[in-house]
C-alpha cells in the first residue's frame, strides 16, 4: 500500500465516523434542534473528509476540483437547510402542528 492509498483510507474512515455520529445523534438526541445540530456535522465534515480522501485517487486536477465543488455545494445546501428548517420548526403554526407532536 502506498502513501496515497493510506491517506484515502484514513480520511474516508474519518468521514464515515462523522456520518455514523451524525446519524446516532439524529436518532438519540432529545428534540428537533439538537437533532438538527447532529446532522449538520455529517453534512459538513463527513462528506468533506470523504471527498478529501478520494481526492488522492483522482487522475488529474479536474477530478479534484470537481470533488471540491461537490463538497462546496453540499455545504451551501446544508447551511441553508439547517437555518431554514430550524426557523420553521421554531415558530410552527398551531394548525400546521402534528397531532401530539413533541417538540
Amino acid at each position, binding site marked *: 500500500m502506498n502513501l496515497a492509498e493510506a491517506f484515502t483510507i484514513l480520511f474516508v474512515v474519518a468521514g464515515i465516523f462523522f456520518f455514523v455520529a451524525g446519524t446516532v445523534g439524529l436518532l438519540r438526541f432529545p428534540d428537533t434542534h439538537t437533532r438538527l445540530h447532529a446532522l449538520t456535522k455529517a453534512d459538513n465534515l463527513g462528506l468533506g473528509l470523504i471527498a478529501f480522501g478520494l481526492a488522492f485517487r483522482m487522475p488529474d486536477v479536474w477530478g479534484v476540483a470537481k470533488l471540491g465543488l461537490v463538497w462546496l*455545494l453540499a455545504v*451551501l445546501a446544508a447551511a*441553508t437547510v439547517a437555518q*431554514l428548517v430550524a426557523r420553521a420548526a421554531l415558530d410552527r403554526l398551531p*394548525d*400546521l402542528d*402534528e*397531532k401530539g407532536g413533541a417538540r
Partner: protein
Amino acid sequence: MTAAFVFDAMLCLLLVGTAVSAVAGRDLFASIAFFVTYGILIGLAWLRLGAVDVALAEAAIGAGLTGVLLIGAWSMLQRRCGDGGNDPAMPVLPKLAAAAVSVTVTGMLALAVLALPVGAPGLVPLVTENLSESGVGNPVTAVLLNFRAYDTLMESIVLLIALVAVWALTPKELWGGVPGLRQHARPDGVLATFGRLLPPLGLVVAVYVVWAGSEMPGGAFQAGTILAAVWLLVVMAGIAEEPRMSSRLLRLALVVGPAVFLGVGLVGAAFGSFLGLPVDFAKALILAIEFALTFSIAVTLALLVAGTPREGT
C-alpha cells in the same frame, strides 16, 4: 462473498423497504420523505448497473423536481382538507383502482424483463459498430439523438402535450395568468441569498451536463431538469415571477426545442432521409438540437411543477 455483493444486497433491501414504507405509510408527509429517499437509492442502483446517464436523470428529477412537486401538492391538500393532508374519507374504489393500475403496469414490466433473451448482446454491437458515424462519443446520446431520433422527437412533443393538459385544467377566468402561488421571502434572508447564490452555479453545471453529453454521460433532459429546478428556486426565493401563460416569448421558448429538432429532420428529408444526420455535420447538429431541447425542456418542466395560474390577465 465480496464487498460489492454485500453492498448490492443492502441496497436492494433498502429499496424495497423505502418503497413499501412510501406506499403503506399512514402519514402523507412521511410517505413523501420515504419517496424522496427512494429516488436517491434508485440513483445508486442505476450507478451499480452501469447506467450513469439514467442515474444522472434520476438525480436531477428526484432531487430537484419530485420533492418540490410532491411537497407543493401536499401543502395544497393540507390547506384544503386539513389533518396533515391525510384524507380519512378517501373512498375505497379509487384506491383499489390506483392499486390495480400500478400492479398491472408492474406486472407487464416484469413480464417484459423476463421475456428478454438471456445473455444476448441486444443492440450493443450494432451501436458500437456505427458509433463513429453518429458524430458523438457517448453511445446513449448517439442512440437518442441519431439512431432513434424520431422517438426522442416524439418524447419532446409528449412533454409539451403534458403541459397543455395541465393548462387545460385552468378555470376560464384565470386563463393567461401567472402560474403557481405568489411566492415571497424576506429580501435579505437566507432563502433569498440562497436563491441568488445557487442559480449561477446551476447554470454552469447545466451547460456542462449538456456539453459533456456528447462524449460522456449527460444530455438535454438532465440539463433541462437542472435548469427547471434552478428556475423554480429563483421563483421560490421571491426574486422573480413566472411569466404569464399568455406571453408570446414563453410560448416560443416552449416550442423552440421540438421546432429545431423537427426542422433538422425536415432538412434531412430534403437530402435523403427524415432525421438523417450527415456524418460531417452530425456533432454540430446534435449539439444544436440538444441546446434548443434543453431550453424547452427546462421551461416545460418548470411550468409543469408550477401548475395552473393564480390570477387572470
